[in-house]
Each structure stands twice: as structure tokens, then as C-alpha cells.
């Protein structure tokens, strides 16, 4: 008699089990073109599973000029997330890219809470960011705790100037203050922007969590990964996938959990969201005139010098180096120069890297670029050089003299700061001893910053390279 009775109990218990569904996204990086497909998915999902929760594990912004380079940086993405009905987000390192004021404006404009347990405001107006947030669905209490990554310098990967109003703790240390949450909820979710490798460490030191919805490393975790009993998910990036997590809850605890990675790329676009995205892209910002080109620029090298000048001015270095392959227009006519022109001239969005070099390393770096880039002699700012270049691109160039812009010869043993792009720092070999550090700036954005408001520019005859082909 005992076995049938137990079976009946199990059946009854199962009948009373509640199911909670959570959708996890991360690292959307302002890929607004993917949002109409996401809207189609969400519409169907909300019909099939009422009460489903939609969560973002951070880095909602940074990746599109329509979102990042507008006067209210980041705001278009928040407005689109409001429209999509996000329930919560944590902070990614890129949420800090536009500084404290812009982040505060975005947080205030969001119809959903941001959570992050290892950041606090050190100065200026308080950010409305709690460590955690509770939801209730069908009598099930769900707690979501947010965490953002910190690097070796104790800060998230963002420009330190943008972080000076904040104080951060290591997420692995901060999370230990929140073990009490286990007793206050039925489902405990860590919404993190730490990277898959650190989420593994987090699961090892915080087994109280039922799941970690992670981001940062753009990792495609198929079906979820169980570590120390904690379900870890991440859905790559740019809204290519979404993760559906399903929790079965009985008597205040999760009795089963699973994750499914769902591709979004083939779905039709939702017309309403498509219109909203088009409205963002049709903002007059991209056609905004930055300056006026006073005379026709007829040489690609002159355009490269203009790009290098912008890079040097924004990075604050002694010299700047741009490879010719990075210069994507051959000429530019006299007339208005707009934001869109910056992206036509440099569509790559390569990161800017600042490197400390000796004069000897600088000359060697320049000499090796044509063999790595295959587009000829590099363009420079803050200096000029004379070089002999073999006709074969695979052979290194040979600089015979080089001076700073004031005519001072570049000294082999003196130290200079150089700004260049991440592509060159990957393909030139050997590199300077200093591996360099990337800053939150790409070529197009440096031109926007540098040229904005200048009454006029004349690069018609600018050349800083005197080249002999042998």
C-alpha cells in the first residue's frame, strides 16, 4: 500500500509545481537591426508563456553610431528596450562608456530596474541601481542579483575617466554578502557581466544560486552548463540567440531547471519594431555637418593624414599612425563633411591602441607596416619621414630620415607615445616592447570629436611621407 500512496503524493506534488520561464540576452551592443526579429520572438513567447521574464546581462549599448554617438548617448537603446518590455538589466562594462551623467539618464529613462551589487556612487548624484530585485510569478518569488566584471586594475573594462565617480568591488567578493537572499526567494538568479570563465568561478563560490545568466565574453553556451549545481548560460552577442531558462519550483525550491539556446536570425521582422528602429536610424544626426572641406582633397594619403591628426588629438599622443588600408575613400570634394562621412572614411571601428615606443621602435613599426597591411606606406601625424620602399609589398620599407612635426629628428633612444589601431597591433611583427592598451575610441569617433565645430579644414596638399620606390 505504501508505494501507491507515495506515487499519489508525487503526482499531486507535481500537479502543484510552478513553472517559471526566464529569457536571457546579453551583449546586445546596440545591434538595433536585430531587434525587430527579437520582437517577433517575444510576441509569440509571451502568448505561449504568460509571465515570462526578459533579462539583459549588460552591454546593451556600444556598437552602433545611431545609439552611441548621438547627443544623449545610449538613450535610443533604452527606448527600444522599453518598447520590447525588458524586465531587468545588469550593468555591463560598456554601460559606463559615456560617463556617469549619461548612465544616470539612461537608468532613469528605463522602464525596468538595473541591478548591480558591486558598484556604488562615490561622488555626484546617486544612481538608482539596487544590488538585487524581486519578482513574483504565480506565487513564486524570484530574486535577481546583478554583478559586473572588474579587471586587474579593479575596474570594469572602460575608460578610467568615465569610472571616476564610481567605486567597484570584486564581484566574487561582493557576492558573499548576499547569501541571505537564498532564504528570501524560491529562485535565485545571478545576472552577471563577468565572462563565462569567471561565471564558472562564481558558481564554485556561490552554490546558493540556481542559475547565472551571464555576459561579457560573447560565449555561445548551448543548452546551459552546470557547474557546482548552478546552471550557467550565455547567448553569444548582438541578439543572434536568446536563452530560455525553465525552472520547476516545488515547496519553495527549484526541483528542475534547464536552458535552451534559441537562434533568432531566421525570424521575420516585427513591423512595429521595424518602424521604431527606422525612426532611430533616420535621426538627422548622421547627416549633421561637422566642418567644411575648403578645397578638394585628391590624395588618399592626405585623407589618411587627416585621420591620423584626429587620432593623435583625441588620444593625446606624440604621434599617430594609420595604415593606408584603413583609409577607405580615395578623395573628398570641397564642401560639407558630415558624421556619415567619418564612417565612410573609416568603417572598421577598430579600437585605438596607445603604445609607448622608443624612436627606434617607432621607425621599425612604420617600416614593417607595408608588409603587414599590403596597402603601402603608412600615414602619420606629429611627424614626417622619408623612406625607400621596395616595389614588392612583402618587403619591409626602409625609413632613411624621420622628424617630429617641429623638425626635431626622432631620436632612437628617446621615448614617444604613439596612437594606432588594433589591426596594426595584431599584424605587425615584431612589435614594440610595450604591448599597448586599447582605449574606448575608434577612428570614426576620433574624427567626429576632432572635426566637430572646426570652421574649415584644408588637407588638399598635405603629405608627410617622401617616398622613393626602388
Amino acid at each position, binding site marked *: 500500500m505504501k508505494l501507491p500512496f507515495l506515487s499519489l503524493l508525487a503526482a499531486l506534488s507535481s500537479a502543484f509545481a510552478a513553472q517559471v520561464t526566464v529569457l536571457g540576452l546579453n551583449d546586445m551592443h546596440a545591434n538595433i537591426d536585430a531587434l525587430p526579429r527579437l520582437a517577433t520572438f517575444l510576441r509569440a513567447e509571451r502568448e505561449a508563456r504568460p509571465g515570462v521574464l526578459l533579462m539583459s546581462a549588460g552591454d546593451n549599448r556600444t556598437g552602433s553610431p545611431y545609439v552611441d554617438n548621438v547627443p544623449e548617448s545610449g538613450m535610443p537603446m533604452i527606448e527600444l528596450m522599453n518598447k520590447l518590455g525588458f524586465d531587468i538589466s545588469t550593468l555591463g562594462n560598456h554601460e559606463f562608456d559615456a560617463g556617469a551623467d549619461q548612465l544616470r539618464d539612461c537608468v532613469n529613462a528605463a522602464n525596468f530596474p538595473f541591478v548591480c551589487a558591486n558598484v556604488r556612487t562615490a561622488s555626484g548624484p546617486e544612481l538608482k541601481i539596487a544590488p538585487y530585485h524581486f519578482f513574483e510569478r504565480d506565487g513564486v518569488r524570484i530574486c535577481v542579483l546583478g554583478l559586473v566584471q572588474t579587471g586587474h586594475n579593479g575596474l570594469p573594462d572602460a575608460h578610467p575617466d568615465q569610472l571616476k565617480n564610481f567605486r567597484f568591488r570584486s564581484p566574487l567578493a561582493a557576492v558573499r554578502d548576499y547569501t541571505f537572499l537564498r532564504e528570501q526567494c524560491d529562485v535565485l538568479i545571478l545576472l552577471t557581466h563577468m565572462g563565462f570563465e569567471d561565471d564558472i568561478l562564481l558558481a564554485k563560490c556561490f552554490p546558493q544560486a540556481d542559475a547565472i545568466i551571464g555576459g561579457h565574453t*560573447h560565449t555561445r553556451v548551448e543548452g546551459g552548463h552546470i557547474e557546482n549545481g548552478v546552471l550557467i548560460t550565455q547567448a553569444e552577442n548582438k541578439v543572434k540567440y536568446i536563452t530560455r531558462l525553465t525552472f520547476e519550483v516545488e515547496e519553495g525550491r527549484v526541483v528542475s531547471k534547464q536552458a535552451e539556446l534559441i537562434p533568432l536570425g531566421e525570424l521575420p521582422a516585427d513591423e512595429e519594431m521595424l518602424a521604431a528602429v527606422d525612426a532611430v536610424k533616420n535621426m538627422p544626426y548622421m547627416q549633421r555637418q561637422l566642418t567644411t572641406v575648403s578645397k578638394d582633397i585628391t590624395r588618399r594619403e592626405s585623407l589618411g593624414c587627416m585621420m591620423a591628426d584626429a587620432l593623435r588629438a583625441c588620444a593625446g599622443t606624440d604621434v599617430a599612425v594609420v595604415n593606408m588600408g584603413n583609409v577607405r575613400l580615395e578623395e573628398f570634394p570641397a564642401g560639407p563633411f558630415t558624421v556619415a562621412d567619418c564612417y565612410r572614411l573609416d568603417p572598421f571601428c577598430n579600437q585605438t591602441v596607445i603604445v609607448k615606443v622608443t624612436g627606434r621602435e617607432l621607425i621599425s613599426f612604420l617600416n614593417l607596416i607595408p608588409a603587414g597591411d599590403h596597402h603601402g606606406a603608412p600615414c602619420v601625424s606629429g611627424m614626417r619621414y622619408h623612406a625607400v620602399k621596395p616595389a614588392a609589398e612583402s618587403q619591409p620599407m626602409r625609413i632613411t630620415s624621420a622628424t617630429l612635426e617641429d623638425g626635431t629628428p626622432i631620436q632612437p633612444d628617446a621615448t614617444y607615445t604613439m596612437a594606432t589601431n588594433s589591426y596594426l597591433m*595584431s599584424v605587425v611583427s615584431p612589435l614594440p616592447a610595450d604591448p599597448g592598451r586599447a582605449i574606448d575610441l575608434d577612428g570614426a569617433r576620433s574624427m567626429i570629436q576632432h572635426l566637430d565645430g572646426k570652421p574649415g579644414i584644408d588637407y588638399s596638399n598635405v603629405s608627410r611621407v617622401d617616398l622613393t620606390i626602388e
Partner: protein
Amino acid sequence: MLVYVNDTPVTIFSGAVAMDAVRRYCTDTHTPLPTGELYDAWGNVIAADSPMSEQRRIYTALLS
């Protein structure tokens, strides 16, 4: 920073992404740039713009 591509140490600028490290690895080892997916140490696919951190290990082919 020091990272590993196919268990080979690669020195790359801080702030680099996975494809920067792979390009550096291919330049250093004189191997052609791979065209397929990139993977982490657990066999998960990672995007080409996956941020790198000190000591991270990535692979250009799935480990058997």
C-alpha cells in the same frame, strides 16, 4: 597581456578581442588566418569580438 591561442602564449595589447589574439598568433607562427569558429577552453563557441583577459585560453579548432 598574456593570453593563449591553441595553448601557445601570445602577448597582445590590453583590451584586445579574440580575433586580435588569433591574428597575432597567426603572424607569430606564420600560419594562415583560420576561417572557422573560435572556441573557449570548455568547447563553447565564442564570437570573434569576445573580449580577452589575462591568461585566457582560446582555440581555433574544437579540442577533441
